[in-house]
């Protein structure tokens, strides 16, 4: 699933994850439960909260906005379409819009702090947020104390990777 070898001695490990289905769900709060039922996935109401079941994940990004991850998109799209007449919404596939980086290692917070103005350390494990890395909009998922996923818009990825390479070299010097 990954494109790079592990180097567990390194201050950080940066890996590109293989693509999975990613969808943007927009629905008014009063229809949230209908969509949650249809998708078989809780849709948390608090921004930054996440839910997961059966390999599907949801991250609340706004009062009417969720990011949904799943192994496949087709089932979700069909299930949502079935409730569209009663619970109008937008479920747009954006699987290819972003590429996801898996970031881990003892210095991962320092890596993020090089270019992310947000207090990433204060993001609780199991939550997520939309933020920026330098000039790129990214979605950050904190999966563990030192484990993150970062969704980066495809065309911004080379810039983000170049910056991360500079930060990696810097972290390796210990200064």
């Amino acid at each position, binding site marked *: 699933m990954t494109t790079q070898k592990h180097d567990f001695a390194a201050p950080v490990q940066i890996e590109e994850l293989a*693509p999975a289905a990613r969808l*943007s769900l*927009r629905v*008014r709060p009063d229809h949230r439960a209908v969509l949650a039922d249809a998708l078989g996935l809780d849709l948390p109401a608090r921004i930054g909260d996440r839910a997961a079941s059966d390999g599907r994940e949801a991250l609340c990004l706004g009062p*009417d906005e969720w990011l949904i991850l799943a192994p496949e998109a087709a089932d979700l799209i069909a299930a949502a379409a079935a409730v569209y007449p009663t619970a*109008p*919404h*937008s479920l*747009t*596939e*954006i*699987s*290819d*819009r*972003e590429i996801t980086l898996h970031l881990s290692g003892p210095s991962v917070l*320092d890596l993020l*702090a*090089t*270019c*992310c*103005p*947000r*207090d990433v*350390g*204060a993001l609780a494990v199991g939550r997520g947020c939309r933020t920026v890395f*330098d*000039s*790129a909009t990214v979605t950050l998922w904190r999966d563990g104390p030192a484990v993150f996923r970062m969704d980066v*818009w*495809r*065309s*911004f990825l*080379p*810039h983000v990777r*170049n*910056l991360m390479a*500079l*930060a990696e*070299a*810097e972290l*390796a*010097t*210990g*200064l």
Partner: protein
Amino acid sequence: MSRYRIPGHGRVDHGAPVSFIFDGKTYQGLRGDTVASALLANGVHLMGRSFKYHRPRGTVTAGSEEPNALIGTSRGPGRFEPNTRATVQELRKGLVTESQNKWPRLSFDIGAINDRAYMLFSAGFYYKTFMWPKSFWDKVYEPFIRSAAGLGKSPTENDPDRYAARYLHTDLLIVGGGPAGIASALVAAKSGARVVLVDENPEMGGALLSDPSVMIDGAPAWEWLDTSLTELRAAGVRLMTRTTAIGYYHQNFVGLCERLTDHLDTPPADAPRERMWRVRADQVVLAQGALEKPLVFDGNDRPGVMLAGSAQTYLNRYGVRVGDNPAVLTCHDSAYHAAFDLADAGSRIAAIIDTRRDVRPDLTDAAAQRGIRVMQGHTATGTKGRLRIKSVRVNPVQDDAVGKPVEIACDALLMSGGWTPSLHLFSHTKGSLAWDADSNTFLPDRRTEACQIAGAGRGLWGFGPVLEDGVNAGLAAIEALSRSGNPRDLPVQNDRLGTGVSHTELPTDLSAGKAKAFVDFQNDVTAKDLRLAVREGMRSIEHVKRYTTNGMATDQGKMSNINGLMIAADALAKQPPQVGLTTFRPPYTPTSFGAFAGYLRGQTFQLTRTTPIDPWAEANGAVFEPVAQWRRGWYFPKPGEDMHAAVARECRATRASVGIFDASTLGKIEVAGPDAVEFMNRMYTNPWTKLAPGRCRYGLLLGEDGFIRDDGVIGRLSSDLFHVTTTTGGAARVLNMMEDYLQTEWPDLNVWLTSTTEQWATVALNGPNALALLKPLVEGVDWDDFPHMSVAECSVAGLPARLFRLSFTGEVGFEVNVPARHGLALWTALIEAGKPYDICPYGTEAMHVLRAEKGYIIVGQDTDGTVTPQDAGLDWAIGKAKPDFVGKRSLSRPDIVAKGRKQLVGLLTEDGSKLEEGAQIVLDPNQPLPMKMVGHVTSSYDSAALGHPIAMAVIEGGHDRMGEVVHIPMPDGVRRARITSTVFYDPTGERLKA
């Protein structure tokens, strides 16, 4: 070992000699030295020449406020830095340094002739000397000023170092690691708050490092310091040394510059030289301490004259006596301790000259015990010595009368004019200052940010009061953080309490008009200059500053501002607060450009976006151009082709057979929901209700002002779903505009917007063979019902696709959208399938030519934000029956419907030459200058299809001038051009109907 270095004394490592070079000569210093302390240890006081008069200068201070001892430092090839402060630069192996602003050498400098001619260089001399004759400005005066201006040599090579950046969030940031800051940190750390303590010095301790004899909490100062720092580290406080808080911005945002490698003998490869920290702190404690003021008297700039507190620092921190028989000149008690420490260390104090008549008896007693003569109620009126002070001229003052002088021999003169609280960061916040008449200084008053000010930074003196204040500031900060803490008693013994008075120039029996009594050392501003500025009409301190350049040197007035203000206020016969204080601006101390740039240089200077097809373009020799944030293939030259030939070939091939183009950068927005069509009707000028699913339409987007903002082809995929395309540069702007209307104007609409620009890779096929090429690759399209301006979800080359039939070239055209990961696969499949048709990849330049031949506009090139649909000839795109759309009302404004607006037309030159884009157009080339310009050329290309150049232009009343000749004056003559339709090629659109 030099006799000026006291073995075993100070915080330097006496077992670790470090050699370095100053002006070509090798010197020995110790690990822990600065260049200044090492030179002083070698008896070298002369370190530079002043800016204007080239006067010999030595170090005045021992810290970052140093105005004089600026040197060039080199850390190897490409690593030369001018204006490094010798008092800050730590010694490291092989450091090469040089003095500045001298020729041919530091000890004999031709430029010092300026010193003799000082009458020419008085305040405002720029404005007086260089005024006439006017013709001299360009050839004589400006080159002279330019060559004379600036200190040091600019580096000539690119900076090879890396610079880093980091964001940091903390509950409490404490600026200044002296006693107040440490005391704050000690109480705050116990509360569990995240605490960061920063100091610009290589080690924490501040004034404690210069005053080891003080006892705190029962321990000698340095032992207490060690214990306290250990306690802070154990409590998780982040201690950052060599880190200067350079600026204090809104909402407790503080910039820190951390110096990482300049002090290292061999920095690790890839290590950044400096790191800029952008700190967001809930609370800030400013514990920056105070800066000692020089005294203003004739000859106060001679090498060997320095601040008393700095001499004490050189002694106690670096183990260096700044002289064998220094004299002390003071109006503050603190200088006595410098004298006592030096006397105890073996220097013979020539005298303590105190301007005050009354001095605390314990101080005079302590002086007497050491055999030091104290001259109370005296002034200094001059110094002697060419490159180093030899004597000071001292006179008694009685009832404002200056008595007879005596000469006191000395090899250093330690002065203290009292202490100025360091208000810089507080002033960055626009916190207000209050004048304290008792201490003759400004103190922090009303705060605008969540900060506390502690210690000498708010005018307190003595370690006891400062420590107590630090504790209180720490407690106040954690209370503001809704945490609790306990007070901490930090009793002090052997404290060095003190007070003082304040002066303008010291009184003299000599002509004040001839005194070179310096206020700003680096810029050579004297007290006389300041008084002259006032006499010549400067009333505000801001004007005085600019007229005299007082406070405009690299020390930013740290030495000179208060003395300058006191003198200007005296000259104006006003109270200092009525004259005001100049504004402190970031950065606090000089900061490298590299630190500000951080990672944003070279490859990471700016974001460059590339499409999934970009690797193919690069491998196939594309020449790229930047378009918005993207890099796009501009043209694909074959061997031997220039741009002109390549573009002409690409255009010909497309019109002859088929061309392929990477259109992935086009903005794409998915508009979905039951109210999608209503939303589209309101946003775009066009009517959408009757557009059937499976069809597309050109959409035009206006601002409220009725001017064209964006355009693009929009496909209706179902009754509730539109696939909107925008211009490449407009994608984010259009989505923001749509969201703005949706959220603020029409929150009732059930419609949602999602950016899908990067979900899709888009490949355009255009040309008479486009359909033949594509057809065999497509599944799921009913070709009998897929005319021009259709859209279908289908598969292309086995990939899921959204297929648009549309044209931006006037040829049969398609845009194939596939999920971005498949973009390159689609492209190569189409290239492969196109081989029988001699498929030709074309770039953005050919795309521009092909669309211009058809008169299709490019928003932002043929429009400039003042072009309406009518102006652009796009009236047909307006849904006239619609009740409203963004910009509709503006289209009926009187000035919008008036005659004579600039309108988009075609232009063909009579001589067949190509016009220049941006060229101005006139109706009568023989009219007198300045001519009335009626418009300009917006697009201009050589057209291979037509065999001659074509152009588009906006011209006043252009639509009513069809066939008229206009004139385009160019440097090589006036061109004549005839106004035509913008549709140059295939005006009836036959070629679209394949």
